[in-house]
């Protein structure tokens, strides 16, 4: 079934989205209705983190979120992350550390780290960082460079 239009602020822009069925996931609305294909579908069951976006500033698995459940929210995807000071710092850190292999997991990692910086600042105890980012999997196993990028983002002022 399909209710009325949803109104979101996506990457800083007001968007009215029509024709969204009640069972549609946020992931699918972003990719197929708004054309924001930087957000990736991986496992579609909440295990890989590839679909991570920010909903009202909080990291959210868009594959496990019904679009209608977040009506009215402000959503940030990888396409808009550069406008956020923390997001821009994370992006620079990933570039500088060459923390990208095939790139499929990268948007999810960038969003998770951006959300972590927004939520907890740069003083997260080092022993908690791996746990904080443990919801993002890199199937290339390119973790060494990713860990370097994380360290760089945490040490750089925004």
């Amino acid at each position, binding site marked *: *079934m399909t*209710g009325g239009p949803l109104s979101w602020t996506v990457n800083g822009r007001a968007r009215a989205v029509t024709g969204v*069925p*009640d*069972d549609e*996931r946020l992931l699918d609305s972003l990719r197929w209705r708004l054309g924001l294909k930087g957000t990736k579908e991986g496992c*579609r*069951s*909440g*295990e*890989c*983190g590839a679909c*991570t976006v920010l*909903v009202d500033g*909080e*990291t*959210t*698995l868009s594959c*496990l*979120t*019904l679009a*209608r*459940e977040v009506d009215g929210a402000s959503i940030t995807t990888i396409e808009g992350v550069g406008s956020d000071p923390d997001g821009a710092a994370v992006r620079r850190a990933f570039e500088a550390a060459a923390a990208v292999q095939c790139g499929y997991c990268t948007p999810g990692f960038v969003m*998770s780290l951006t*959300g*972590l910086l927004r939520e907890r600042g740069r003083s997260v105890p080092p022993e908690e960082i791996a*746990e*904080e*980012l*443990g*919801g*993002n*999997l890199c199937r290339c196993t390119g973790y060494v460079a990713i860990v370097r990028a994380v360290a760089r983002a945490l040490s750089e002022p925004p």
Partner: protein
Amino acid sequence: MAPFELVAPESVDAAVATLRAAGGALPLAGGTDLLPDLDAGRVDPRRVVSLRRLPWRTLDWTGDSLVVGATLPLRRLEADPDVRRRFPGLYAAVRAVGSVALRHRATLGGNLARAAPASDLIPVLLALDAEVEVVGPAGARTVPVDAFVLGSRRTDLGPADLIRSVRLPESRPSAYLWQRVRPSNDISQVAVAVAYSPSRRDWRVAMGGVPPRATLLSGAADALEGPRPDDGSIRRSAERAAREAALVADKRASEEYRRRLLGTLLARATRATVAVEAP
């Protein structure tokens, strides 16, 4: 997945009435467990009743007891410094659930209502003597968590009942430890929650990760003597746990491996609890 109708009532009464009226309706809290089940066709509701508009995202302290609203995201629970300090076992258990992004949506009420056999939260709720506050067509009632969880994916909830909140009667030194093949995205082979009650001067030991449901191990708890049990007492407790626990073999672990894990985790969790300064 067959399409369903999503409704988001503005009041508790309306939510209960909606669940009661529609045959085949299911409540939706964070959705992190329900949505994969919808995808897999394990559930097929005609209507899904979202709880997002209900005023249950709460965390209320009264003295050293805590009432957690059913739809409070787990991440908010772990972010509270008093929860971390006064319920260290609960903090550890919440951190063991999924990932940060998942915990921004997942809820304590949802975890209890869905009653997965490998729930990381039910063991620690057992060890803390948590009480589940339920609302439904017959009014409100309070059910101890041990009587609330009936089996794998089975609870005391009627079809139009909702969990409103979970009450933790007293702060307790506590710990939660688990063993998994892959820490970040697997479920536990065995998990152990341990808590010491300062008011009752006794221990609670609960085991999780073993189907069909988390269970209290009363023999193991009774073997722990005083607030600072010595090594002999801890060893006897671990031996009793290995004898009394109903263990099973499945793809995650053999029965014998689980038995060894149980004793090891129980001893470590007890020592960790003793090391917690009284809250």
